[in-house]
Structures are given as C-alpha cells and as structure tokens.
C-alpha cells in the first residue's frame, strides 16, 4: 500500500464498552508503533513491535490497553471497559527496520470518543 492505514477513522463508544482499533503498516516494515494523542497535545508513545514481538509496552496507561501483531503485519490496539479519559486520537506508525534513526511513517489516526 501507499502508506499506513488505520480503521475505523472515527469511533464513538459508550463508557464501559470494549473497542478494537486496526493498523495496516507499510508492506515490509518491520517495526510498528502506537501513540495516543490527546486534544491539544503531542503524541505519546504507547507500545512498539518488531515483527510480531512486542518489545516495549511501557507507555500503555493501564491493563485495559492491549496490543497485538500476531503475524508481524497488521496490528490491533484493544481497549477494554473504555473510560472518558481514553478519548483521544490513536496513531499508528511503521518504520522499515526500527532503529532510532529510521523515519516513522504515520497513519491518519483513529479518533476515539468515549461518552
């Protein structure tokens, strides 16, 4: 594909519902990142995969957040029992190899609103 794609683009959930956000990285990119961007803020790191291995999940705010990338390509970020403070744009990025110097290519994001 031409770039990183994310779906859905918009998601409205009632408090307490579970949601799943999908990311399709650029084909062949080894590394995949999830970031959370609250309104008026810069993105904040959530978690990082190299192929199917989740190497860093230090940014996940609680155990309600779970991410997977079972086949080393598509990734899903799942949020259980959503809370209002989970409302944000969730950005996915991929990079070719995952070195700190690699360019991260970002998707358009999924805007999650929790009512």
């Amino acid at each position, binding site marked *: 594909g031409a*770039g*990183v794609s994310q779906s859905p683009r918009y998601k409205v959930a009632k408090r307490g519902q579970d949601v799943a956000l999908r990311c399709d990285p650029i084909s062949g990119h080894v590394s995949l990142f999830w970031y959370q961007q609250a309104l*008026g803020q*810069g*993105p904040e790191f959530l978690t990082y995969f190299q192929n199917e291995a989740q190497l*860093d999940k230090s940014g996940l705010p609680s155990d309600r957040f779970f991410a997977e990338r079972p086949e080393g390509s598509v990734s899903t970020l799942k949020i259980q029992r959503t809370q209002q403070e989970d409302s944000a744009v969730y950005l996915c990025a991929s990079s070719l190899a*995952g*070195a700190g*110097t690699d360019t*991260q290519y970002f998707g358009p994001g999924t805007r999650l609103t929790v009512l």
Partner: protein
Amino acid sequence: AQSVTQPDIHITVSEGASLELRCNYSYGATPYLFWYVQSPGQGLQLLLKYFSGDTLVQGIKGFEAEFKRSQSSFNLRKPSVHWSDAAEYFCAVGGIGTGANNLFFGTGTRLTVIP
C-alpha cells in the same frame, strides 16, 4: 526531567514572511531530532531529521532546521511561508535510553498563515 519543549503554542505569520519555530530538549545526551507536520485529518509527515554531522539540515517543502548543542535547540525555519504551510508542527526526539526506538514529542505549535 527529560522533555521536549515547544514554547510557542500558536504563531501567526503573513504569507511570504519568514518563519522560525522553536524547539528545546532536555536530555543527557544529544538525541535524534525530528520535525513533523500535521494537517487536519492527516497523519504526521516528516519534514526533516538530524542525527549527526552538519548541524544545518534541509528538509522537504523548503524547510530547514539548525541543531545548536550549546542551547539544546533544534529550531525549524522557512524563509518564505506559503498559505499551504498552515498546520500543526511537532518537534520530536528519539534514540533515548530504553525507549530508543520510539519518539517523544513536544506539545506542538499551530501555524496560521494570513494573506
């Protein structure tokens, strides 16, 4: 505390005028430095990056940035702004400690361009 600071929340410039967006970082070592631009509804796009070597870096869309170690700064510049440059600009650092593969972002500077 480690941080990335963008002191200007909002800047307004006239089309054709020059632009400088400020970025300061607070880390023990020189990190990898990036500038990203985010247009409404779009993903983050990399403008330029600095790892080492020449401290003046050229990027896309006519942007440049200068790394100044003594000031821990990486300011973004453009000699003549176009209306299409109106967007949100984020400075980011990478290559830091155990999170060497992910990026830490500033809070962003929103640029408005007036005719």
